């Protein structure tokens, strides 16, 4: 579900391989993300470009993953969100707690 794309400059770029991110796969995603965090020293970057639908269960799993990351001085960074998904984060102000970028390149070269 979370495919590793590449490692670069302290970041592990991954891609979420689902178009419907909901309660059918949120538990599996959460455990996969925590396993990734526990097994790597890099900050985890998740490419969300495939995701067209996201529900509150999946948002909860993402927040749980971010809390786990912060507890180990790591991070979960989101890139390539479709407009509706980005709007959902903004609606409930999760854009205040997640670092959200247009692309992986934007993560590597801030500003």
């Amino acid at each position, binding site marked *: 579900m979370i495919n590793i794309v590449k490692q670069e400059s302290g970041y592990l770029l991954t891609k979420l391989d689902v178009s419907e991110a*909901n309660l059918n796969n949120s538990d599996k995603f959460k455990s996969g993300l925590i396993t990734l965090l526990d097994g790597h020293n890099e900050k985890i970057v998740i490419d969300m470009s495939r995701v067209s*639908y996201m529900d509150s269960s999946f948002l909860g799993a993402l*927040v749980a993953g971010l809390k786990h990351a*912060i507890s180990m001085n790591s991070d979960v960074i989101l890139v390539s969100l479709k407009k509706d998904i980005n709007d959902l984060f903004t609606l409930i102000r999760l854009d205040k707690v997640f670092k959200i970028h247009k692309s992986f390149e934007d993560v590597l070269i801030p500003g």
Partner: protein
Amino acid sequence: MQIKYSGKYFTFINVSTALTPSLKQVLEYLEENLGDFAYEHDLYFKAKAIVTELLTNGFKHAGAESVNISVDIDPHFITITKTDYGVPFPLALPGTATGTKTRLSYDVMHHLYAINERPHHVRFVVEDMTDEEPDVYGIGEHFGLLIITKCAEEFVYDFDEASKLNTFTARVRLPD
């Protein structure tokens, strides 16, 4: 755009694998009736979020075999209603006094309340907190009712004691 009165009633089986196909049927109906107007004014986004969370909430908490979604469009509102005969919302049952404001959830960004406006009738309201750099540990992990309340101009729940029917109603205002 001249908005015409229209409405449609859907019945969906209440299983998790039916959530996305059910949502797509509702969205197709909205697209047929509102077209680009819905995209231009974020109506499609709000309706999508509301229906997603009504269906998800129904699956997680109602325990009913099926759920009904009705979508009614008039020149001023899109009204999305979910009904089922599952487990009632507890704060609408006898024992909660009219006027009671119960905090359902709170974190560093939002406080979500249920207000018992009259017997068997609850209105959901949200208050935004002002913290611009919230601590992630102060944030909850349950967002369903919050999302609906923030997308809708009005979000209420009614319980019919006689028939045991649960009704959640969310109204999204259309721009003038």
